[in-house]
């Protein structure tokens, strides 16, 4: 199956995959590119690509200023996340445990290419369930607070989610999301967090911090995209997946085998399937042909076809001036899907009704 993208999305994809084509962009194309890149948090990435390809001097000044602004903001948010982690480690100094840094901060710690331009707003951490209560109370003693949330939301987090309500230090702005699992507890899939800790690797220079093993990091990224989230405007996250797989497969030739083995072991190979499929479809990730065949379970043909139609429409940003109706529908359907696969109906229906009502109150 081929990838069909509207013209404006092609401008964005080309810029990311083949930056050298940017020298031919007209002012109108540059403008449309920037507006889309901002929507999907890729201004920092574009800045790095242009510099890496020695194209920076060819960028129109009005575009360059917007790119710098985007890059500076990404840098600032990264600095805030790193500092938040620093302060958390300080609080946990006398507490004998390890915590796993997830997502953006992890990519920074492993020096993933282009991580410097990645916009990440929150600090995501994974802790052992047995440590959760202690860590939460240690942080709260030292000035972190839950944002006031409704009783319903509190219940949602505590009973159904895989994280506790977000914490924010009173003197700072960075939100800390503490997870005790990678998948919400209402989901039929279960991944034992202990398994992840068993294979986690130490982070250089941070004795308390660990990182998911390379294959688990990739799997987590795929789970987030195709299991936990609604996919709308998540192009950046698919790019993370592409970056991770490219990076790790260059470091270790057995990477693909380890990846599929792990996915089979954790019983999430149908999720990884989508990750492999869309990363290759959109970013032409070089994945050995045999990789997919090693997966134990794959989505059925019809499901696959539907996802092939819907996912790109949702991942890529809408045209900022005229939104496509097909893309709006794709987003709505994927939104429903994301909930259906996360919650049993008896929880889901009241949940969606509650959220709908609240939106219109």
């Amino acid at each position, binding site marked *: 199956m081929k990838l069909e993208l509207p013209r404006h999305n092609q401008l964005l994809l080309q810029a990311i995959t083949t930056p050298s084509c940017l020298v031919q962009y007209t*002012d109108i194309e540059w403008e449309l590119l920037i507006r889309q890149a901002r*929507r999907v948090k890729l201004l920092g990435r574009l800045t790095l690509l242009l510099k890496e390809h020695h194209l920076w001097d060819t960028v*129109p000044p009005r575009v360059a200023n917007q790119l710098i602004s985007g890059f500076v903001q990404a*840098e600032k948010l990264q600095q805030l996340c790193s500092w938040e982690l620093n302060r958390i480690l300080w609080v946990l100094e006398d507490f004998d445990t390890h915590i796993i840094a997830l997502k953006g901060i992890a990519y920074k710690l492993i020096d993933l290419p282009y991580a410097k331009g990645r916009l990440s707003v929150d600090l995501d951490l994974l802790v052992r369930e047995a440590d959760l209560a202690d860590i939460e109370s240690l942080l709260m003693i030292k000035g972190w607070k839950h944002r006031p949330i409704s009783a319903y939301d509190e219940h949602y987090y505590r009973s159904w989610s895989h994280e506790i309500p977000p914490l924010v230090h009173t003197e700072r702005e960075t939100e800390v999301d503490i997870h005790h699992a990678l998948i919400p507890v209402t989901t039929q899939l279960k991944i034992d967090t202990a398994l992840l800790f068993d294979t986690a690797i130490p982070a250089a220079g941070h004795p308390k911090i660990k990182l998911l093993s390379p294959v688990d990091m990739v799997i987590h990224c795929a789970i987030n995209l195709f299991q936990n989230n609604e996919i709308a405007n998540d192009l950046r996250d698919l790019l993370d997946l592409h970056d991770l797989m490219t990076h790790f497969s260059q470091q270790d030739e057995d990477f693909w085998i380890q990846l599929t083995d792990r996915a089979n072991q954790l019983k999430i190979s149908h999720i990884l399937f989508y990750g492999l499929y869309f990363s290759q479809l959109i970013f032409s990730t070089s994945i050995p042909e045999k990789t997919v065949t090693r997966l134990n379970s794959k989505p059925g043909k019809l499901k696959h076809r539907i996802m092939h139609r819907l996912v790109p429409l949702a991942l890529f940003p809408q045209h900022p001036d005229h939104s496509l109706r097909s893309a709006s529908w794709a987003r709505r359907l994927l939104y429903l899907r994301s909930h259906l696969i996360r919650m049993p109906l008896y929880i889901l229906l009241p949940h969606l009704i509650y959220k709908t009502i609240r939106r219109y109150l």
Partner: protein
Amino acid sequence: MMVNQIPFKEFHLLLNQGLRVAIGPFNVCIQTTYKPLAEQLYQLYRHYRTAQNEIAEFHVRIVTERSNKNPFEKNVRFLLDGQSPFESFPQAQALAALEWGINLAIAVRVSHLLLLHSAVVEKNNHVILFPAWPGSGKTTLCTVLSYRGFRLFSDEFGLMDPQQGTFYPIPRLMPLKNESIAVIRNYLPEITIGKSIPNTQKGTVAHACPPEESIQQSTLTAKAKWIFFPKWIADSTTKIETISDSEAFMLLASNAFNYEVLGAKGFQAVAYLIRTCNCYKLVYSDFEDVMATLQRLIDET
């Protein structure tokens, strides 16, 4: 091409498709089909340059929609790149919504410049900053100064290039609030002020046009030489008090929109400003009095 060189009909058509206006260092693409707003903009933006064939940094729209509360009423909504950062406003507030929206867009997006929250004017090629929160009367003071021999840079944003140490003018409509509207109409009867818009979030607002020359010269940058932290106090005589460098530093940095986003660059930029500027606290009520005081200080140095 200046807006006032375009017939209204054509201007209205451009607005329907997206009118690009040069506002200081930025181009803003404004799109609306709401005719009363087109009429207001035609009057108030008449000295601005259109930039139809240039890249625009900001794409804003004002759209009308049915009010949720009253089905017979229409509201307007501000959109930035198709996204709505605010609730909708009553139709009569379309202009205020547009102006606030553009300010918000600048404040949240621009990080290649240091953005001080400050009124800025220029005299003898030197910039004077009046950093202050709302309620200090900076817009009112700025309106008066800009029509009495000072060149307007902005009533809201001090846009500083952190490398060069220069300020960019960004003359925009000056939103006078409540009592200031009558004060300015009396004091400067000759200037163009838009219709009063009652019941906005800030009370009644009316937008004063910047002087034509200030808009025309809005590509001329300059360095800062004076910083006044102003406070308007009814019936007070003009008082000027020097303040220490360290205090000025902390006040100036805390009056910026993106000081912390800029990190070390922001710190160095503020330090540079403090080292190169004379810093004062200014208490005033009377325009003549404050202008005489400013003039005396400028002449002395």
